[in-house]
Every structure is written in C-alpha cells, then in structure tokens.
C-alpha cells in the first residue's frame, strides 16, 4: 500500500519526550530508591555543576574563536592569491582531519603555562588551552562551511552587486556573507554540538570539567553505584544540553530545504 512514511504525530511526540527525560529520570528514580546514594548525589551536584559550567564556557569560547577564524579562513580559501590560499587550505585540511583529542593534548602540552606580555606574566590556564585545542578543529570546519556557503551563492548576485558599484570586499561584506549566514546555520550548529561534546575530552588533560569532576567525586565517594550514577549524570547533562540543539538544527534544516 502507500508507503508508511507519514509519522504518527502524538505517539511519536510522547515517545520523544520520554526519551528526552529518560536519563534524568533514571538518576532521580534511583536516587529516591536508595536514599544513601541519593544523599551523596545531592551533595555532589553543585561540584558537578561547576564542572559542567566549565564545559559550557569552553564550548562557547571555542565556537566563538573557531567561528571568527574559520569565517576568515573560509574567505581566504577563495582568494585568487596562491600564496595566501595554499597555507590556509593546508591548515584546514590538516586540522579537519586531526582527532580532537590529539589537538587537545597538543595544545595542553606544547603551549607554555603562562605567557609574557610586556614583562607581565599572564597565566595561560589549561582550560584556555582546551578552548584553543577545540577552536582549531572548529575553525577548520567553519572554514569549510563558509567556503561552501560562499560558493553556493549564485554568481548573478556578485554581478548585481558589481553593477551597482560595490567592490569585491563590499559585496562580500554586505551582500554575500549575510546570505551565507542563513545557509550555514544548520551545519554550524552541528559543529557546535560536536565541539560541545569534545569538551569532555579536556578531562583527559586534567581540565576541571564535568567528566573530571565526576571522576573526582567517584574517587572521593568510593562507591561503585555512585560511580555508575555519576556517569549517568554526566550523560544526562550533555544530553539535556545537546538534544534540544540538535532538534532545532534539524528543524532549521528541514525549513531551509523546503524553502
């Protein structure tokens, strides 16, 4: 018969909402079932929350930096001068292909712990290194997104701008890039989600983020069931943050595809 691609709206929505809350629900139900465990969890929640704040800060800053650099590099990848273009293309290729974890290791261990600016020692803490470690791949992805978006703008738009007397730079700034924005929003959000999840890798180099905090807590509490529930809390935190973003992304994608 006719293909069953039509979704069954209500049952799906119910399922989706249950799914969305499944992880926190498990944590809560389990904590209630075993009050001693529940008390430990409750005690550690502030500590874990402070860890998670670090994930969010790292992710936000990495995306900020990555987007600025990436947008610039995306444009530079298209300039007609080989001398500019080739190094940028090489950068993008190298770091698009590099594992996040390796880049985090690299920035953590290669960069100094403090930098000297005009004789002042400025600390260069690990979490900022993690920001850079994640901003590097983010910038490579954003560069590719930007390049793709610019190329997808019809050449007639450039021509129309030229006909009005815009220079190349002005046309890019006022006409082409604003149009790229819309097209590149969904892929940009995918990168943001991937970078957000990459922040967990910072735990492996000792940044005090959520996963690290959970390990600390497990070490201190030394209960097997606490360790398990700590991991569940970690997953729930990331899920509650990333799932809405990914749903929004798909909604936008669908909208843009339809338009």
């Amino acid at each position, binding site marked *: 018969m006719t293909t069953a691609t039509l979704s069954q709206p209500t049952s799906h929505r119910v399922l989706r909402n249950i799914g969305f809350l499944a992880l926190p629900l498990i944590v809560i139900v389990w904590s209630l079932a075993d009050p001693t465990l529940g008390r430990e969890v409750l005690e550690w929640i502030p500590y874990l929350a402070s860890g998670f704040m670090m994930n969010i800060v790292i992710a936000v800053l990495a995306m900020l930096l990555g987007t600025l650099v990436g947008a610039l590099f995306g444009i530079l990848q298209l300039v007609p001068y080989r001398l500019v273009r080739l190094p940028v293309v090489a950068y993008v290729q190298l770091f698009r292909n590099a594992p996040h974890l390796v880049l985090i290791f690299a920035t953590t261990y290669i960069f100094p712990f403090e930098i000297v600016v005009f004789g002042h020692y400025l600390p260069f803490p690990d979490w900022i290194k993690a920001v850079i470690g994640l901003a590097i791949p983010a910038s490579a992805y954003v560069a590719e997104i930007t390049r793709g978006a610019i190329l997808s703008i019809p050449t007639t738009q450039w021509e129309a701008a030229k006909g009005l007397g815009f220079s190349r730079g002005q046309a890019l700034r006022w006409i082409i890039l604003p149009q790229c924005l819309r097209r590149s929003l969904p892929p940009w959000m995918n990168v943001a989600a991937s970078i957000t999840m990459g922040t967990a890798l910072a735990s492996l180099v000792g940044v005090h983020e959520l996963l690290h905090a959970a390990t600390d807590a497990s070490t201190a509490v030394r209960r097997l069931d606490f360790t398990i529930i700590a*991991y569940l809390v970690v997953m729930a935190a990331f899920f509650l943050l990333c799932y809405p973003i990914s749903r929004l992304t798909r909604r936008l994608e669908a909208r843009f595809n339809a338009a």
Partner: protein
Amino acid sequence: MQDMSLTDLFVSLTNRIGLNYEFLATGYEAQIWRDGFITTLYLIALLIPVSLIAGLLFAACLTSGKIWLSAPVRGFIELTRNTPTLVQLMFSFLVLNTVVSNMLGGAQNNPLSPFFWVVAVVGLHIAALHAEAIRAGIEAVPASTVEAARGIGFSQLQILRYVEVPLAFRSSLPAIVNNLINLVKLTTVGNAIAVSEITYASIMVWTQRDNVVSLMIVILLFFSAINIIVARIGLWVERRLAVPGYGL
C-alpha cells in the same frame, strides 16, 4: 642490524632539528609505539565494516515502519549523537562491562576486552550516523520509482534491496565518507580505556620523556595521511558507482 642503524640515523638527524625520537632506540617504548600504529590501523580496518553493517541494519529498522523496531534505534541514535563518545566509552567499559561480568558470574568469565568496547561504542556511534545518512537517502528515492517497483511485483524487502538501498547508498556516500573520517578520528578515545592505539602509546612514551612535540607531529601527519586515503577511497568508490546521467 640494517634496521637498527636506520633508526639511529633517523634519531640523530631529527635530534639535530630539535626533535626527540630517542625512544625509538629503546626496547619496550619503541615496541609499544610501533604496536600503537598497528592497533590504530587494525581498529580502523575493523571499525569501517562494522559501522557500515550496523548502520545498514539501523537504517533498515528506521525505515521498516514498525515502531518497535524504529523507536529503540531512534532512541539509541539520539543518545549517541547527543552525549560525548568518551563518556559513552567510559560508561560502557567501566559500568556495562562490570554488569556483564556480574551476570556471567565473575570477571574471569567475561570475554569482553577494552578493544571490544571501543569497537562496540565507536562502531555503533558511527553506525548511527550512517543510518541517518542512509535513511535520508532512502527518503530521497522518489515515491514514483518505488511505486513502479511495487507495480512490477517486488516485495517491500526486494524494493529495499534492489532499488532503495542502491540509490540511497549513492546519494548518501559523501555523508558516509565524512562519517568514516570521523570514525578514524574517534579511535583515539580508546586510550581512555587502555586500548593501545597510537595516542595511548604516545602517552606512555611522553610521560616518561619530554618529547610531546615530536610525537604530536607524527600523530597529526599519521591521521592526515589515513584520512586523505579514506577520502580518496571514498571518491574512488563514488566514481565507480557513478551512473551516467544520474545525479551529478
């Protein structure tokens, strides 16, 4: 002997430009490091088919139209897409593995190794991404083509096998290759559970020595090379499968 002197030559040459590869001349560190490369390559070689097969199965469940098949897969896809793979891996290895051990009546009966868990977690994670790509490809097959197949007398499964999957595979190939590049990068999380892949081996070396930069250079080049190869193979497959007059 020949090999030995080559190593020495390399070590001394690189030393002159400030890179420290002295560990290559030692026993167990050099061994661990070489094994690291092999393990990473082995992981990749194993994970690619695993992820593709599981991805196909997931996609089949998603498009089956049966809610008891699609809902759990959908749920897994959302979970794996929206939580860090590292945490999934630690959770699987440290928690699920213990549960499995307890069920089998003790750790000594548990055959599951860290290697297994990396393959399972990374493989299924990438499979979920493949499944999404394939599903999108299947949905992009025109309804009229499906109806034509049905009109000829193909069953639902045959339509999937002979019409939808071949077409969907072609249109989702770029996304799949992209996922495979992510897969290669993801193998590094194995170090968190002591799978002796290349980053793990390198950590073992640099915790005893001060040569992070030297090791990083090699690792970055190594992954670039693998991913360029993966992308090339993807392109080659894309060309091989290209149908004249169809698609781009």
